């Protein structure tokens, strides 16, 4: 069908143009990170006259990148891990227990998702300040609280495809509830756990506001926080700022390229539910 071929070609061209347009911000950021201050001033759109690496080394040091990367990693992995495990336990218990109380508790968990962070940020800072939890331990606990509602909802949904017969078979074999959960149910929850993991990693890794309120100690600070401070210090010194921004997004881009398919699948499921 000639007409169809023509249409597809047109679509392919439009797609290509849009794709290029979509990438332009990245191009501009990277290209100008390699220029000197003067280089950006004279030519902002083109490739650098001389490729400078100095911006990157300076940004890397000022962002304390190794430490802030480690902080972001630690907080993200721990928080997400706790969310997955504890929300799965809760989702399992709530879905297997069909009583009225169970339904009420489930509804409560879901309803709490509505509360926006700005409505509770002042009390959180005040209360946790008083008990000395404005640190990495505190923040992981906070992420658990903030993230588990959505996770419980997703696990509860996924539980409907896991037959009760499995629970019963395990019980007959003498397993207690914990063994049943850990050895049989939790492995079967792997797909939804991946979805939950991805959604939370994206959110927590990039989160700025909560860390800015909780992590006062520079040694505990995460990448977004350091980026904010760095940018504030070097405003208008675009060559440095852009180098810093490039460094900051490299882990995200690398991670994305590796697990792209899973990410898109996870986001798709999470949003449609």
């Amino acid at each position, binding site marked *: 069908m000639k007409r169809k071929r023509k249409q597809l070609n047109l679509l392919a061209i439009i797609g290509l143009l849009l794709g290029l347009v979509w990438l332009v911000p990245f191009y501009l950021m990277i290209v100008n990170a390699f220029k000197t201050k003067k280089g950006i001033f004279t030519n902002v759109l083109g490739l650098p006259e001389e490729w400078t690496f100095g911006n990157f080394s300076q940004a890397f040091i000022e962002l304390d990148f190794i430490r802030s990367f480690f902080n972001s990693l630690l907080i993200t992995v721990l928080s997400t891990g706790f969310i997955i495990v504890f929300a799965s336990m809760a989702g399992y218990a*709530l879905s297997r*227990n069909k*009583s009225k109380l169970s339904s009420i*508790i489930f509804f409560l968990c879901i309803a709490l998702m509505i509360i926006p962070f*700005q409505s509770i940020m002042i009390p959180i800072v005040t209360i946790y300040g008083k008990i000395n939890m404005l640190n990495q331990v505190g923040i992981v606990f906070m992420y658990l609280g903030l993230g588990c509602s959505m996770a*419980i909802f997703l696990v509860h949904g996924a539980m409907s495809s896991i037959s009760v017969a499995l629970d019963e078979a395990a019980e007959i074999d003498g397993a207690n509830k914990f063994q049943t959960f850990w050895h049989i149910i939790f492995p079967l929850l792997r797909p939804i756990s991946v979805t939950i993991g991805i959604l939370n990693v*994206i959110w927590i890794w990039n989160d700025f506001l909560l860390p800015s309120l909780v992590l006062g100690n520079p040694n505990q600070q995460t990448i977004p926080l350091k980026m904010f401070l760095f940018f504030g210090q070097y405003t208008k010194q675009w060559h440095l700022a852009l180098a810093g921004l490039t460094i*900051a997004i490299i882990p995200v*881009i690398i991670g994305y390229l590796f697990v792209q398919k899973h990410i898109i699948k996870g*986001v798709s499921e999470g949003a449609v539910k």
Partner: protein
Amino acid sequence: MRNRDLSFWIFLAPVLIALTAVLIIPFFYGVIHSFTDWNGLTVSEFIGLQNYIDLFRDAEFKASMWFTMKIAFVSIITINFFGLGLALIVTSKIRTSNLLRTIFFMPNLIGGLILGFIWQFIFVSVFKDIGLALGIDALTGFLSTPKTGFWGLIILNTWQWAGYIMIIYIAYLQNIPEDLMEAADIDGANSFKKFQNITFPLLAPAFTVSLFLTLSHSFKIYDQNLALTNGGPYNSTKMVAMDIYNTAFMENQVSYGQSKGVIFFIVVAAIALLQAYYNKKQEVDV
């Protein structure tokens, strides 16, 4: 069948503790304190609805509310327009669709703060140079006026979220049965007619999902606002979340800031309830 024995509660304990300590207690603590003259450290008296009365007269707060609504409303249109458009391209049979899908979704993975800084560079520096070179005045001084600040936020918001909404539309588009399309082909329908009579109606739930996602997300914008314009010039592009933050932490009006936070909750909850209502309604219709 689980009964309400110890194991049930042990399985629930971690999340119940976390939800209580991080959401429930702070929420009620905040609500109660919004009725006092709390300054973050001490409370000396109960002031009733005074904060809320002040809030309704607060021109800046109202301005930020209004600005936020404008951003949300326009974003809904742009994000959904691009989201659907990109989805249609990606689900067509062109060979580059996987690559394009990867590209369009990429901005969504990067934090709002970093995106805000990248676009600040583009609007302030790149636009200026292009504007000077081509003699287009409108491009120089971008972000230095309320109007350009507004559109800057819209462009950023769209670039960040169109890919995410695209994923949703793709999921729904892929659920449209092939035979429906083939039957239409046999009946001689062209692409436009097919879209109009099959695709569009079947995407109705996708519209609803995307509408509410975009709405609630746009309402809560903070990082991008901070990084792109910092509310400037002169607080003209300050969104609600930033207003709350500034009131509480920079102007040190803690209980007043908290009352704004409570109002913010009410608005966001109203949106969520509307969404739940619409979902229920659609389920019945289909």
